[in-house]
């Protein structure tokens, strides 16, 4: 009897815990800003579920339950559940690309005029976070390219600072050949990958 009471207490405690801390979770897939739709897959020990169409949703009641069925969620419901998070969501950062001549820190002629626009946007948006990322194509070895894209990024950093952009908000990095705009095989010449990207957040 005593044992039963103890068991009942434990069961009751478990039920209460499940009731107040179930952590019921809802996921909703949206269309990407570019118009395509990606995919998310939620998995726990009980199972998994995939969303791959815009507006699809799934509810997982607790980590003791498998994810539920995939169901469409109406726009009005999305707004009522997520309105505030969607409203505050930052727009995607503005990105500028400066293209360089082969194996060089010299800008392609078309890229010199990009500077003024970038500086203007940084000022208009009162940006407090600017990234400058240097890139190369895949001709030459990776170490050399890492150094080359550093020099490219520093060159652009210098230009921005000369235009009065606060150096303390700038973070400059070199991605070498590891983050191409146009993926290619090794040792391929690709002018569109010889670039510095200035990202204004």
């Amino acid at each position, binding site marked *: 009897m005593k044992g039963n009471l103890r068991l009942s207490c434990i069961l009751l405690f478990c039920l209460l815990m499940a009731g107040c801390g179930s952590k019921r979770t809802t996921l909703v*897939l949206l269309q990407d800003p570019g118009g395509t739709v990606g995919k998310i897959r939620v*998995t726990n020990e009980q199972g998994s579920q995939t969303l791959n169409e815009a507006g699809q949703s799934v509810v997982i009641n607790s980590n003791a339950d498998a994810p539920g069925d995939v169901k469409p969620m109406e726009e009005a419901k999305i707004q009522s559940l997520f309105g505030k998070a969607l409203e505050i969501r930052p727009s995607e950062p503005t990105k500028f690309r400066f293209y360089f001549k082969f194996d060089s820190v010299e800008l392609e002629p078309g890229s010199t005029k990009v500077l003024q626009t970038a500086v203007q946007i940084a000022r208009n948006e009162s940006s407090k976070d600017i990234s400058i990322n240097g890139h190369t194509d895949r001709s030459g070895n990776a170490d050399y390219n890492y150094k080359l894209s550093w020099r490219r990024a520093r060159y652009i950093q210098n230009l921005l600072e000369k235009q009065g952009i606060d150096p303390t908000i700038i*973070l400059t990095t070199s991605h070498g050949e590891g983050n191409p705009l146009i993926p290619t095989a090794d040792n391929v010449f690709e002018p569109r990958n010889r670039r510095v990207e200035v990202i204004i957040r």
Partner: protein
Amino acid sequence: MKRYSIFVLIVLILFAVPVFASSIGSIKNVDGAAWIERGEEKISAETGVRLLIDDILKTGNNGAMGVILHDDTVISMGPRSEMVVSEFVFKPEDGKFGLLAKFIKGTFSYLSGAMSKLAPESVKIETPVGMVAVRGTNFLVKVED
């Protein structure tokens, strides 16, 4: 004057550079009560505040905030929300990637950045009821208390 400049330079090198280098992103938009808990410290959320790994981001009853990570992943949180980014490695130059964001409670929007394009398998979102694998995309999460 010269001595002062050298002092400033040393301070910059000692403090600013390490914090800066380890920053994983920054706060872009804030509305109402929103803050960061960094160890014992409580930092009020403002545009431009840099985020570090393991920072706990929280919003109050009417609060909301939006952040952008260094790979351009965009995450926003509605009221009474809490999240932590506990892993962030974005080093395309070494082919190293990793993002683990924990959505603890509240409402969130998530928009993938470069990491999802370069190494989708390295991006994970943890919720109290399961892990979410992301294939380059845009989605919403609500975690009830």
